[in-house]
Structures are given as C-alpha cells and as structure tokens.
C-alpha cells in the first residue's frame, strides 16, 4: 500500500500519522505539500490534524481551496481511500466530500482528553481489524469537533450505515456523558457512500504504542494495511 500524507500549512499531526502508518505498513508514507497537484500511484490519502491556515477562518475552509484538493477529490472519485482526522475531517466537510460540519465544542472550550469510540461497522477498510460494537480509547484534541448536520442528513447517514464511530462511555453506552463535544447523535466519524472516505475527530494515530498509554488506535492502521495490501 502506498500512502500519502497531505501537508497543509499549519497542519501539526503529520509526524504522528507518519509514525502510525509506518508501524502498520512497514513503509514511510509520502509527504505531499498542499501546493502539489498530483496524487498518482497513491492508494491511501491521509489528511492529518492540526490548524491548517491557523483555523483563522472556519476550520478547514482555506485548506479546502488548496491546489491539492482537486487531486484528492479525483482520487476519491476513482474509488481511492481517503482518511481525514480532526482538521482533516473538517477539511473534508468544507470540501463537500463528507456531509455536515464541525461546530465549536458544546462547552466552548478546547478539549484535550481520551474519549471512547464505539465501532458502528467493521466491514470497511478502515475498521476491519475492529469488531462491530467494540469500544476503543482514543485521544482527542480539538476546539471544533461538534458534529452537526440536518436531521435529514443524519437520518440518511444512519439509514445507509455511514456512521463509522460514535462517542460512547467506556462500556459502550451512547449517552450524553460519553459525548464530550456535543456531537449530533454522538457521531465521531462518518463514511462516504462507497465507504472509502472516512473522517473522524479523535486521534487513533496517537495511541499505537504501549508506551504512550495503549495501542487502541493501531487496529485502524493494521486494518488499512491489510485491506489495501496489493
């Protein structure tokens, strides 16, 4: 599998992502600067977390206009896999590649903490190494992670099984106390209709090493490596 990490100015979790990808795939991902325009030969495009363009405008809005975006869109349209984490998720929604928006956290403060995610479907390239209903821990670090979409869109996402992860309590219950940022229906991550574009707010890439407190995030990358091995 050939992976590329797209680096927008102000992105800051590209190194974390590269470490996680290399650990699972055995290869260093390619770093692609946002002013480039081609993603030829790439199987997985990753948009990591950070503060693209400082998030001075709406989070992700500037990056969604970068020169690399048409190539990312084309990659997705030809069935390529795209993973957007945190700011990457925000960029994907701003680019219209995933529905909805990420609003300010309900408490109006930046949150840095571990959350628990419940896996809503395990039959995707991103979640194949998890079980459906499995709960895993992941760090989150964001000020704008409050997923919002119209009732219609939320119903469609749920109806079509496009919710990948929900915030949950450690034992897997979907309750307000397990939903740190106020996301609609506790949604933490969503998929495109062809299941090949995933956006999520928390950072599984920061929990792939027992020394850092656990390996709960590693199955996501192991699963991708297995699914895209060819």
């Amino acid at each position: 599998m050939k992976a590329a990490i797209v680096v927008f100015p102000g992105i800051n979790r590209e190194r974390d992502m590269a470490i996680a990808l290399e650990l699972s795939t055995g290869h260093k991902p390619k770093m692609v600067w946002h002013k480039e325009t081609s993603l030829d030969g790439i199987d997985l495009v990753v948009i990591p977390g950070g503060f693209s363009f400082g998030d001075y405008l709406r989070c992700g809005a500037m990056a969604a206009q970068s020169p690399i975006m048409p190539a990312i869109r084309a990659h997705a349209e030809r069935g390529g896999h795209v993973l957007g984490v945190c700011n990457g998720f925000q960029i994907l929604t701003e680019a219209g590649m995933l529905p909805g928006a990420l609003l300010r956290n309900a408490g109006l403060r930046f949150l840095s903490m571990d959350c628990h995610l419940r896996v809503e479907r395990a039959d995707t390239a991103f979640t194949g190494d998890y079980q459906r209903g499995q709960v895993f821990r992941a760090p989150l670090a964001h000020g704008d992670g409050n997923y919002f979409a119209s009732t219609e869109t939320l119903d469609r996402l749920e109806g079509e099984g496009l919710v990948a992860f929900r915030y949950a309590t450690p034992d897997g219950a979907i309750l307000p106390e397990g939903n740190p940022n106020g996301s609609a229906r506790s949604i933490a991550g969503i998929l495109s209709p062809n299941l090949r574009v995933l956006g999520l707010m928390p950072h599984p890439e920061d929990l792939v090493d027992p020394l850092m407190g656990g390996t709960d995030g590693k199955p996501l990358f192991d699963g991708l490596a297995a699914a895209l091995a060819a």
Partner: protein
Amino acid sequence: MTDVNQALAAAFGLSAEEYQRVLDIMGRTPSLTELGVFSVMWSEHCSYKSSRVWLKTLPTKAPWVIHGPGENAGVVDIGDGLAAIFKMESHNHPSFIEPYQGAATGVGGILRDVFTMGARPIANLNALRFGDPKLARTKRIVDGVVRGIGGYGNCVGVPTVGGEINFHPSYNGNPLVNAMTVGIADVDKIFLSAAAGIGNPVVYVGSKTGRDGIHGATMASTEFDADSESKRPTVQVGDPFTEKLLIEACLELMATDAIVAIQDMGAAGLTSSSVEMAGKGGVGIELDLDHVPQRETGMTAYEMMLSESQERMLIVIRPDREDVARAIFDKWDLDFAVIGHITDTGRIVVKHNGIVEADIPLDPLAEQAPLYHRPTAETPKPQPLGEIADPIGIEKALMTLIGCPDLASRAWVYGQYDSTVGGQTVKRPGGADAAVVRIEGRQRALALTTDVTPRYVFADPEMGGMQAVAESWRNLTAVGAKPLAITDNMNFGNPTKPEIMGQFASAICGMAAACVALDYPVVSGNVSLYNETEGTGILPTPAIGGLGVLEDAAQAVGLAFKPGLSLVLIGEIKGHLGQSLWLREIAGQEAGPPPPVDLVAERAQGDFVRAQILGGFVQACHDVSDGGLLVAIAEMAMGGGVGASLLPAPEGIAPHAHWFGEDQGCYVLATAMPDAIIAAASLASVPARLLGRTSGVNLTLADGTSIPVQTLAAENARFFPEWMEAPAA
C-alpha cells in the same frame, strides 16, 4: 519632531544618571531612535541591571552543559548525540493587561528562543500564579491565560505537558505567567547568535512589523499603577499560525549551510536582536529600514526599531546562499527581506528614507550598561511555630485539603492543552511527578517539571530558593530520570526596596547551594522584577524548570496506584507544619519556618529512589510535597482508582503532623518488593519504612476511618469546573 531631553529619557525609564551616560557615550544629544535603543537595551528586562551581580553567583557548569546562560536558551548533552535546549521566560505584565494575548505571546516568545538555536520544540510547560479565587478579576485572568496558552501551543503543535498553578492574594494585581519550552537538536547542529563575516547580508524573516508592543520591555520594567489599563497597546498580538510556519521554515533552512547566525526578535525587537548579534560577534551592523516588511504605513525608524511585533527572526546568512534561503521562505509564504549587512565599524547604523536615524557604538552600549549593587535587607527568620492542636481530625482535613484551590485537580486546565500532539508523550499531565516525553525515533526520553513554593520563599528566601530547586530535582527523580539542569524564572517585586532585593539575593544563595549539592546547574533563565501593584509586592517566586533524562522511556514510572502493592516511605517524616497548606487551610495561619531541606539527605534519598525505579522494583512513585504524606497517598489512590490500608502514624508524632507535615526529601513508593527495598535502604543509610498496602477502593486509616477513593476524586475534581463554569453572578 519630539525634543530629546532628560524629561523624555525619564519617560522612557532612564534615570538622570543613565541619561548622562548616554550623552557621554554619544558626545551629543541622541536622536529619538537612539534614545529608544538605549532605553530598551538598558531596561531591567534586557540588561538585568539589578540582578546580574547575583545571577553570576549561580553554578552554571557541568560536563553535560554545552551552553549555559548567555545564549538564547540553555543547551545540555542528553546522550545519543542529542542536545536538549530549554528556557523559561515570564510574560507577567502583559498577561495582567491582556490575559489571552499576554499568555499566548509568552508561549510564542519562548518557543522562538528555543528553535532559533536549531531545536525542534517537543514540549511546553508553564508556571502560573493567580490572585484570590474569590475575586471576579482572578477568574477572568485565569480564563484568558489558560485560553491563551492553549490557543498558541495547540495551534503550533507543541504539546503542553506540564505546569503548576498557585493562588495567593499577593498576585491579585500581578499574576505570573512563566512559559517554558524544551527542544531537541543534534549536538553538532546548534545555532548561535554571534554575527560574523563583513558584508554578509542581514535577513529579516517572518511576520511584518507593526506598531504593536512598542516599549514593551520598558513596561515590563516598571510597577503597575491605576493607569496600567492605558498600556494595553504595549501588549503584542500573537499569530501562532505564522509561528508554526516560521518553525518549519527555520528548521528547513538550518538543514542547509546558509546560516551564519540567527536570533529571534523578542523583547525590544529589531533593536535587541541586531545589537546583540553584532555585539556578540564583535562586528558592526548597518540596517536600512526601508526594506523592513511593514504592516502599517508611515512607520518611523523609532517605531520600527522598538516594535515588538511577534513571529520575526533576524538571520545573518552566507551571501552565496541567499537564493536557497529565499526559496525556503517563499515556499512557506513568509516574508524574507535583506535589510542590512554586517560591517567592521563596531557600530549600529540605522538608515531610513536615506537619513541616518541612529549611529551608536556597540561596545559602550553593552559595556557601560548600568549595573547596580542594590542594597539588600535580610528577611528576619520566622519564629518557630510551636504546638498546633488538630481542630478537625484527619478525614475532614484531608477532604478540605484535596479540594482547596492549591491542591484541587488541574484537569480542567490541562484538559484545554493539547498534551499528545507529536505522539511521544509517555506521561501526560497529572500522571506522574514530571512529564515524560520520548525523543521521536529513540528510546531516550526527557523528564520535565516546573516548581516553586512561594510561601516558603516568602517566609525564608534562602530555604525557599533551596527547596524550589530540590523539589524540581525530586520530581524528576520520582519518574526515574537523572536530573541534568534547570532554567530559572525569578519573579520578584521592586528591586529598589532593600527587603525585595534581600529576598532575591537570599533565594539565589539557596538555589546555588542546592544546584551544587545536586549537580544540577542553571543553564538559562529570566528575571522579572517590579511585580508589584500599587506598592504591594508578590510572594517571591523563583520558578524552576527542571530537565532530566531517561535512557529508556519504558523505565519511567507514574504515580497511580495498582492493587496488591506495598507502600514504602523513603525519607523521614518529622511532622513539620510550618508554612504547610494544612496550617493555612485548616488552622488559618501562614506562619512558622518552611520545612528545612537537608541537601545531603536529599541527594542520598533521591539517588536511592532513582536506583530502585531503574532497577524495576517500583510500580509507582510520588514525592511528598504540598499537603504532606496523606495528600500524596490520596493523589496516588485517585490516580489509579485504587485504595490502600495504612499503618498508624509512628509513636511520638501527632497524627495530623505526621499526615500533613510537609517534610522534605520524602517519597512514597508502591512496590511488590518492600522487604528488599527496605533492606537496601538500610544498607544505603536511607530512612525507609512500610506505610501500608494498596487494595480495594477505599483509603483506610489504622483507626478504621475509610474514605472511598471515588469520594476523594469527586471532591478533588470539584473546584475548577465549579469556579470557572459557574454562571456570572
């Protein structure tokens, strides 16, 4: 045109004698720009004129020290061909006037001090002091400072991994915001600021220059009064996005051979960076301000030289590498402008619109900078405390202490700081006595902490200074790290008052003694004086930033209990209640001497604890500090969600003094091998005894008192969210 005279010099903060010295050096009346340059370079903030004679007495050398004080930050060899570069700096005055931007730019400034030397910043810490929580203003300042630290640090992508917060009314009108950055570089790729190479271009990179922060360094060198609000325009505005680009662009440039010398534009901006770079290199510098990237129109030479606009660097580069360097900054969309060149004149010459606006000889500017041996008055030794009866019992006292503002959980605060970005944070805030951050791609890790107990320093400055250094050494030791060096941030009141200068001098003496005894030198630091409002000084606060190394990050231990372990106390509890939190919170007194530090015992006990941790015999470790032994045990219990059964206090010591005395040099170890540890301690002549066992979900005392750990945790977690999230009254 403004007339330059003694009155203007006074308004710029220069004394009559200092202004006369300017006239002598110049041999004529200085221009406005020249007066501005002298006034900021000779400000307390830039010249250390009151503190330098004392700072020179601090030990700064050890075989692992690569660069001590005098560079942008301290540099120590951490093995593996790597250097740690670190410093702590205050942004107290701006944070009072404009808490968000004051704190944010404090973080930005200290980051630049570190990456300007070639290091990638890998961790931020802070040391914060606020006034009485009952005041609405305190709440507003805490909110702004916490948001500002998070807003800047989170955006630049450097994890904020540790810090400390105290409250005391002496900080009501003068909070302290001390920010520390730690970076990593190869030992053979460290960049210094001494300019060289006659004719070499002087390059300005980063943000454009605006009118913000003019005379910020001078403001930071005076007391506050009722007019302080009017100084808001002297506070700079931070742009962490540009800082992030600047970090990446500078590190990219540093991987080439283009740089001769580099320095950030911090306090006193273009003035201090150009003067210091040329001065250190023994050369001259000529600047043409027409080429300075400007954010506003019509700026004068005076304004440009004194602006403290953020996110700017000054670089002397090899002339044949100008294109390489320019291409890197173009890629990152940052300004890159050749604004001058290095000369052999030994002078700084500043031109604007074809007119020479300043022409100052550099040697006298530095060498004849004022240096004051200010009078000192020794703080009288505190009266002994005498017997203090226990008014409320152990259980109530424990609950009160762990819920009080100085001991309540800081999760609300550090929950707003990204502590995991970078993916190398082994021990996060709250998880251990020191933060532990692994070096990317290596086994090696750094342990980091910030410490000082201002109430001890106020009661006995020498003992308090000693304690601050020892406490930081202890916190590094408690995770298993070998402490290497410190950075200090000396926050004191008005140095022209002998009692304040006496505090400063005595604190330095105590610090120096601890540094020597613990092989733990000072490699960088910052002094913030005039921390007074309307004549009232803060508690003397020499904040210490400690750095230690672990050869293998996997050897680090945290403080959380695990079930089925024995608890061993290392060190001796005598029940010292003077200046303790128990005395203040339970008995309502701030009295007595602070707990004495025995540096010989400190060293022996710490070295013993570290050996036990590195030997793999210890599953959790926590030092005894604020609140005493029972608070330390409660913190370990809450950390792991695991209870413990404790043995009774030994005969001959009152239970409340045993459990809440703040005796120094003590550690609680949780271990599966208590007998082996106690036997080894006996051989090493280190006091050690069994305290109890971890088990269940309650903390149980020998008299049967039993408190659910959940109850403790709920009380501990209460203060910050209730205080900060309460609707405005």
